[in-house]
């Protein structure tokens, strides 16, 4: 008896259909064989029988399963081929849904979560600087450090324990003018790194050699180029080794090529070449960034370390900060008063994991990417709901076939298995097409993102994680849209359905419950997409019409690199004056001036100040943003002076020091008092103070940031400041178009000095465009997603109602025959539909609220719970729903009672 139940249990390894068909026979046969063995052969023969039965589980049973799968697949293919339009719609919508999800996931993963490619054991890497930041700072800071100076890096490298190696890299990324042997100047993207860069990252060259720590001791004029650059610029030729390349004042020899796939320590950027940090003065002449002159530090480096095995991040952080603190104490020991010393010493390093490397884009794109990933996920859900609806409707058409098979003895499980196989086959087709779609979408997305960050670069990698994601999405989609209809369609007992075929005068609302639920779900999911799209569209509208406080038309921003000239301050100042004079003489130029910060250049300048008659409430109440400007700055920019006068030619060295403040400054520090004639004192340290007299108040203008409130700021005349190495931004106002003036500007710069490099020359509008590019991209995508969601929801609603009304045509015909007017029929159907629309909108409202919180940080000039947007989105959804309902309802109201009843 026990043997029998064990064998029966073994039979469960076979497909159900096979078991049902032959299970009993096999049990009988096995029992007889076993009995025979007991009689004749004894234990050995019995054991052989059991062994055979167990072996069958691993040989015969899988074969039988495979047979069923093949059978189902063949059937699925026949079904798909039989309704090509349905198959096309399903595969296409799945391809788009899965493709969009995979593309955005790949980007999201690449930007936010992936480790540095081509790097040995990235988990061991830590960063001592802020991974999200890129740039530099000359002076002093307090609190947590974003960047380190070269001297600090050297101290940490030499004295901090717990690391097997440490390297520093230039945090910013720049375009260099380079030239190979006697060729023409061309652009290349370069980065300076310390000698340990390649060793600590664990990277071996593709050809040649890479830097070693020897590069940190003396200036070695070498360069390592990236694999991509090697292929692109040199066609992968090996004789690239030893080639000379000129970058500014340096003549460098190419000693090696980095391996394929390696991009360095920053994700989203692809340098063409790396140069030792010790070459800084030759590659980036004008200012020494390698040595700190007390009390100012040149902080511009990212520092990475590789932890020794067994050392925790907490231990290493403590060691690093001990070395760092000692360095600060010896640096500031002699220079500062006790009071400022205490302030200077209040600095520390925070250690972060370095596996993902530094990334400017991570910080910049993370919010948008997460929001987009959520949006495409929702879109796929809507598409699945829609497909499930289509399958339900089609399942209804196949009900007779299914009922027949059920009555012929097929089990419900078997039929569900077959129907789900059909969905899986559809989903796999959609998934394969989706991967192709993902490849193209990814490229398009990267190009869109590059509009807001020209250095952004990322290629589509089908790594195991992305592939697993695509597979998981495909399977999830198949289950989502396949299982519910499969269960629903096979639910009703065969007899009832077969009987019902002959008599369906009354509707079967129960059957439609799943369909109605799916439509409600689609409406609920569409609302947050529509609201999000609306909010982002309004954000872009607001950004484009944002009042910056000055007209953005007919204004040029030109920056000339004066760093080489700045070695001699007098030469630099005369160059600025000469260039300004040249620009002012160009025909079509209305006015010209300059400032240190320019407009939306990404820089910032701040000072500790003392304002006459103002008592600071807190420590951070003594700082203000400032800018150093040339004469006529405000009139050139077009910012009105609301009180007093602007900075003029007469505000030169030797004259009383003057400044202009903005309204925000006046409000914050003078608060109703008349600021004209008051003194603002800039405090560099306890010994060095400079006082300026306020001569004017300018209207608030947004020159650095589109978002947030305009900061208090004061403006001083450059000629009244100590000489500076700054390369100013020239502002050139034109009377008409900017294009012809731009050409003339380039010519006049060459006339002054043909060797002067032009860093940038563009209109203010071109300067601002990248700032809102990401918002525009996100909004465009959101609007597209919203439109697709709306269309799908409308199709779903239309489909369910058409189907429902077709099934109820008998009932409706009777109503009409009994005298119901068309209007009443339409009203009845609308009334019945309103429930599901209202339910969908109610749930959707909640989802929309959650969605608005997700994109809150990206909004501009519109509240996340903006009632107008919500009302418009809801209204649109209701309108589209009504039209989707109205068409089938009208058709129902025009039923010919006799024709409809005869058809039954």
């Amino acid at each position, binding site marked *: 008896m026990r043997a029998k139940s064990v064998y029966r249990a073994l039979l469960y390894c076979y497909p159900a259909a096979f078991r049902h068909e032959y299970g009993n*026979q*096999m049990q009988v046969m096995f029992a007889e*064989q076993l009995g025979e063995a007991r009689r004749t052969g004894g234990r050995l023969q019995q054991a*052989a029988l059991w062994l*055979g039965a167990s072996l*069958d589980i691993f*040989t*015969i049973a899988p074969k039988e399963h495979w047979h069923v799968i093949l059978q189902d697949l063949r059937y699925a293919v026949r079904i798909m081929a039989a309704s090509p339009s349905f198959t096309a719609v399903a595969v296409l919508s799945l391809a788009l849904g899965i493709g969009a999800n995979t593309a955005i996931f790949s980007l999201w993963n690449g930007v936010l979560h992936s480790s540095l490619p081509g790097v040995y054991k990235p988990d061991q890497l830590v960063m001592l600087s802020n991974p999200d930041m890129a740039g530099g700072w000359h002076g002093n800071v307090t609190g947590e450090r974003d960047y380190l100076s070269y001297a600090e890096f050297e101290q940490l490298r030499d004295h901090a324990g717990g690391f097997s190696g440490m390297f520093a890299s230039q945090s910013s990324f720049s375009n260099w003018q380079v030239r190979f042997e006697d060729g023409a100047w061309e652009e290349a993207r370069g980065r300076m790194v310390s000698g340990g860069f390649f060793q600590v990252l664990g990277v071996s060259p593709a050809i040649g050699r890479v830097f070693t720590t020897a590069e940190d001791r003396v200036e070695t004029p070498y360069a390592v180029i990236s694999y991509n650059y090697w292929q692109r610029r040199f066609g992968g030729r090996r004789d690239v080794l030893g080639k000379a390349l000129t970058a500014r004042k340096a003549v460098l020899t190419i000693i090696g090529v980095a391996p394929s796939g390696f991009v360095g320590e920053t994700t989203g950027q692809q340098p063409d070449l790396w140069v030792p940090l010790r070459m800084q003065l030759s590659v980036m002449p004008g200012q020494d960034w390698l040595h700190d002159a007390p009390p100012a530090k040149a902080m511009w480096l990212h520092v990475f370390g590789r932890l020794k095995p067994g050392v925790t991040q907490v231990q290493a952080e403590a060691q690093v900060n001990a070395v760092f603190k000692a360095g600060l104490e010896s640096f500031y020991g002699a220079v500062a008063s006790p009071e400022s010393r205490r302030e200077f010493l209040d600095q520390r390093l925070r250690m972060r994991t370095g596996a993902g490397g530094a990334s400017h884009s991570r910080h910049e794109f993370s919010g948008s990417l997460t929001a987009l990933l959520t949006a495409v996920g929702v879109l796929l859900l809507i598409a699945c709901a829609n497909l499930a609806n289509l399958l339900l409707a089609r399942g209804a058409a196949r009900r007779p076939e299914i009922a027949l098979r059920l009555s012929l003895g097929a089990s419900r499980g078997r039929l569900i298995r077959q129907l789900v196989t059909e969905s899986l086959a559809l989903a796999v087709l959609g998934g394969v097409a989706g991967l192709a779609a993902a490849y193209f979408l990814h490229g398009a997305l990267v190009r869109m993102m590059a509009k807001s960050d020209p250095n952004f670069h990322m290629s589509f990698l089908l790594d195991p994680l992305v592939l697993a994601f695509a597979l998981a999405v495909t399977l999830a989609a198949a289950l989502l849209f396949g299982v519910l209809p499969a269960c629903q369609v096979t639910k009703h007992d065969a007899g009832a359905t077969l009987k019902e075929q002959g008599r369906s005068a009354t509707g079967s609302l129960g059957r439609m419950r799943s369909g109605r639920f799916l439509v409600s779900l689609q409406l609920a999911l569409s609302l947050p997409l529509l609201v999000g799209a609306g909010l982002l569209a309004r954000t872009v509208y607001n950004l484009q019409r944002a009042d910056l406080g000055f007209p953005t038309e007919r204004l040029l921003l030109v920056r000339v690199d004066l760093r080489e000239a700045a070695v001699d301050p007098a030469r630099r100042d005369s160059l600025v004056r000469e260039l300004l004079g040249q620009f002012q003489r160009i025909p079509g130029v209305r006015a010209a001036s300059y400032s240190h910060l320019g407009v939306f250049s990404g820089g910032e300048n701040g000072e500790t100040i003392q304002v006459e008659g103002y008592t600071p409430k807190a420590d951070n109440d003594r700082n203000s943003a400032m800018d150093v400007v040339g004469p006529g700055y405000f009139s050139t920019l077009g910012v009105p002076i609301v009180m007093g006068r602007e900075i003029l030619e007469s505000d030169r060295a030797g004259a009383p020091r003057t400044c202009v403040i903005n309204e925000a400054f006046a409000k914050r520090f003078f608060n109703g008092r008349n600021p004209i004639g008051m003194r603002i004192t800039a405090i560099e340290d306890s010994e060095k103070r400079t006082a300026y007299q306020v001569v004017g108040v300018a209207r608030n203008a947004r020159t650095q940031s589109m978002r947030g409130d305009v900061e208090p700021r004061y403006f001083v005349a450059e000629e009244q400041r100590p000489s500076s190495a700054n390369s100013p931004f020239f502002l050139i106002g034109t009377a008409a178009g900017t294009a012809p003036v731009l050409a003339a500007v380039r010519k006049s710069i060459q006339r002054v000095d043909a060797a002067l490099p032009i860093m940038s020359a563009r209109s203010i509008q071109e300067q601002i465009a990248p700032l809102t590019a990401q918002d525009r991209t996100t909004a465009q995508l959101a609007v597209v997603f919203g439109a697709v969601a709306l269309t799908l929801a409308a199709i779903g609603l239309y489909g369910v109602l058409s189907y429902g009304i077709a099934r109820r045509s008998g009932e409706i015909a009777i109503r009409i025959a009994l005298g119901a007017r068309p209007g009443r029929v339409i009203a009845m159907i609308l009334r019945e539909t309103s429930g599901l629309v209202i339910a969908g909108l109610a749930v959707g409202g909640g989802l929309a609220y959650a969605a608005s919180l997700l994109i809150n940080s990206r909004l501009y000039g519109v509240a996340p719970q903006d009632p107008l947007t919500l009302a418009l989105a809801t209204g649109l959804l209701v309108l589209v729903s009504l039209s989707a309902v109205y068409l089938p309802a009208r058709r129902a109201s025009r039923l010919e009672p006799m024709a409809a009843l005869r058809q039954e």
Partner: protein
Amino acid sequence: MIHDPKPESLLPLPTAVFHILIALADRDRHGYSIMQDVAARTEGKVQLSAGTLYSSIRRMLEQGLIEELAEGPDPSSTDERRRYYRLTRFGKRAAAAEVARLNALLKQARETGLVPGA
């Protein structure tokens, strides 16, 4: 069931299938009887397991090599659970084709002197 008009397309027949065809040549049998017949004819060298037997039967039914009888040849049989199988004409043709294939192979082996010829 799918009847392939060309029995050659099924060749070579799997050993188990060929044995079942032989077992069904003289009379209709149920599964256990097929198994016993095969074992007897091969002096116990070929012991078909229940899994192998019924997996083969399932395939042979689909291929039209055999058919299941509506009722057993002996209606008075007490065991209702037994199912009987019969060779179809197509099954006979397939068996003949397999025999011809094996004959040709045997002939070649003899002609080339691989094995002593008769």
